[in-house]
């Protein structure tokens, strides 16, 4: 059980390591995604076709959550799922193979980057806004009924907090005191729509009062702030004290999806300076938690893991088109 009031230096380094792994991963996917889409840009072309929503800038949210969960806890994510999946300890090879549409992928290539399901870590995600929340309630319900102290964390964007499923889920979770933690990633944008054009209040944490649950907003994309808030919320959930809502003010470092020219984006200029990873590295270096050598080693290890996963994915078999109709049902075939 973590001490939720003070981070030790090794815990800080662990958060940093997770963030670096995530960023390394997203940069590698970015590279692979754009590697074979030219001339021009054809979204359906290449080894990794389709929409691609990367999470660079949002690593603090993922790292701060992941630190408090074990593989027995459930995590549901959105169309932008890689960072939380990695922080939750999903198998990097299997996830990458899925993104490359391979038979060795988490979903045997059927799901893709927005549909990652991992029974081993109770991870799932959905491409439909806010619709990943209700299933998280059900996982929490199953955990509660089994008398365990396992929890479910449901991550969603600030844009999603205006979808009906958000409201219904928070009310039901509070009503039945389910062990769920709702985390809203406020990256200021829902595609091209700024938060002010989508949300009638300044902080979604204020919406917690509408359900009688605790609500906290973490500012400044602070990984330690997330760690603190999620730690408390997970603790409450494990203790049977019901759900919580946390909003984190985070950062969308890149476009909404790859190919997004962000012409609409008024805040672009300041973005690079707000990258949370160098900031945190500098803080750890300054505080003595990390040395330059550690940092280098962490980066190198991340590159190794990521490149291993990508190599694994690329060398994995492509599904056999003869099996295109498989897995619709567990039992029997459709006649």
């Amino acid at each position, binding site marked *: 059980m973590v001490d939720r009031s003070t981070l030790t230096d090794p815990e800080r380094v662990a958060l940093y390591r997770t963030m670096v792994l995530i960023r390394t991963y997203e940069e590698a996917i970015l590279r692979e995604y754009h590697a074979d889409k030219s001339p021009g840009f054809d979204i359906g072309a290449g080894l990794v076709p389709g929409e691609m929503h990367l999470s660079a800038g949002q690593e603090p949210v993922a790292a701060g959550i992941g630190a408090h969960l074990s593989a027995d806890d*459930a995590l549901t994510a959105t169309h932008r799922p890689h960072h939380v999946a990695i922080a939750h300890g999903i198998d990097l090879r299997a996830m990458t193979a899925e993104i490359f549409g391979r038979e060795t*992928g*988490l*979903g*045997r*290539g*059927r*799901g*893709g980057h927005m*549909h990652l*399901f991992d*029974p081993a870590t*109770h991870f*799932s995600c*959905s491409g*439909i806004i806010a*619709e990943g*929340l*209700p*299933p*998280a*309630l*059900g*996982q*929490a*319900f*199953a*955990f509660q*009924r089994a008398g365990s102290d396992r929890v*479910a964390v449901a991550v969603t964007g600030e844009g999603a907090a205006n979808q*009906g*499923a958000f409201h*219904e*889920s928070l*009310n*039901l979770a509070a*009503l039945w005191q389910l062990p769920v933690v709702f985390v809203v990633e406020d990256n200021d944008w829902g595609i091209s729509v700024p938060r002010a054009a989508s949300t009638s209040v300044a902080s979604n944490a204020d919406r917690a009062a509408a359900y009688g649950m605790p609500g906290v907003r973490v500012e400044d994309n602070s990984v330690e702030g997330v760690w603190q808030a999620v730690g408390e919320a997970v603790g409450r959930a494990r203790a049977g004290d019901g759900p919580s809502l946390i909003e984190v003010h985070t950062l969308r470092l890149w476009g909404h999806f790859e190919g997004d020219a962000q012409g609409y984006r008024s805040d672009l200029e300041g973005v690079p300076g707000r990258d949370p990873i160098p900031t945190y590295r500098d803080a750890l270096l300054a505080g003595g938690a990390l040395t330059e050598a550690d940092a280098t080693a962490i980066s190198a290890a991340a590159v190794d893991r990521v490149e291993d996963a990508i190599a694994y994915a690329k060398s994995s078999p492509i599904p056999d088109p003869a099996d295109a109709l*498989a*897995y*619709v*049902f*567990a*039992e*029997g*075939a*459709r*006649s």
Partner: protein
Amino acid sequence: MSTTIDLPATLPVEPEPGRRKLSTAKAVSEAIAQQMRTDDGVFVMGEDVGAYGGIFSATTGLLDEFGPRRVLDTPISETAFIGLGIGAAVEGMRPVVELMFVDFFGVCMDQIYNHMAKIHFESGGNVKVPMVLMSATGGGYSDGSQHSQNLWGTFAHLPGMKVVVPSNPYDAKGLMTAAIRSDDPVVYLFHKGVMGLGWMKKNPRSIGAVPEEAYEVPIGKARVAREGSDVTIVTLSLSVHHSLDVADKLAAEGIDVEVIDLRSLVPLDRDAILASVSKTGRLIVVDEDYQSFGVSGEVIASVVERDPAVLKHVSRVAVPDVPIPYASVLEYAVLPTPARIEAAVREAMAS
């Protein structure tokens, strides 16, 4: 209401020596209860499924036996509680979730068709969703355009969920047992008119013999409800009874009608349909759902794509693409009534 009428939830059961009879509603709740007794993971959830016992009595008595931890009244938040069922099923439980009227699918369809129905596929078979979503369908009692629809064609069109539609108590119990035990998501649609409710127009076949023990009616197998050689009626749910009534009536005139009760739409028992029309050469599809782009078209296409020469005659008796009107006289003008079915059979015989 001002003067409280104490209504029996279902029609009184007429005991018959050696054959226990139940209403369809009771058959449904018995199937659920039996599975709840044998499997701790089975639980029931929905609006008014507890103390009320389900608006159409599908869950009557369950709260008393199993208590509020396993029979849960929900807020009016269909997306949240159906999604909750999905998550619980993913973790190995076996929820039976009631959507009060199928007409309400529009507030929660994303959970149903994009999640419940697709997770198994998207996960490459690694995650199962053993969940039953049951819902009431159908009109005929002036409940208007938002409470009288059948919509089974809408569910059957979208991949990843099995769709069953019982017409009688025996099938209702057996299909519910099979649905709960299935590792796949099953949409279980019961027409209010076959439930044997004490407060709705009485349908004699909504009370029938039901074995005490648990048994399964296989999902995906149609039933020949009546054998005949002249014309095939392919139908489902309440319309089975209308079709049988018409068949009985016309038998006196020497017209021999075969009635196929589909029981399942997904999987659809195309073999059974083809076997019957191969014999009769005449096909009438009777369907209380909207006519176009639905069940009736699919049944017809299933036949002719296998053999375009088998049919001498084909017609449909369905709701003619109009919202269900409130006024009774209008509603009965668009429902597949016995009179419309009879006319269709006569026309088929004349062709």
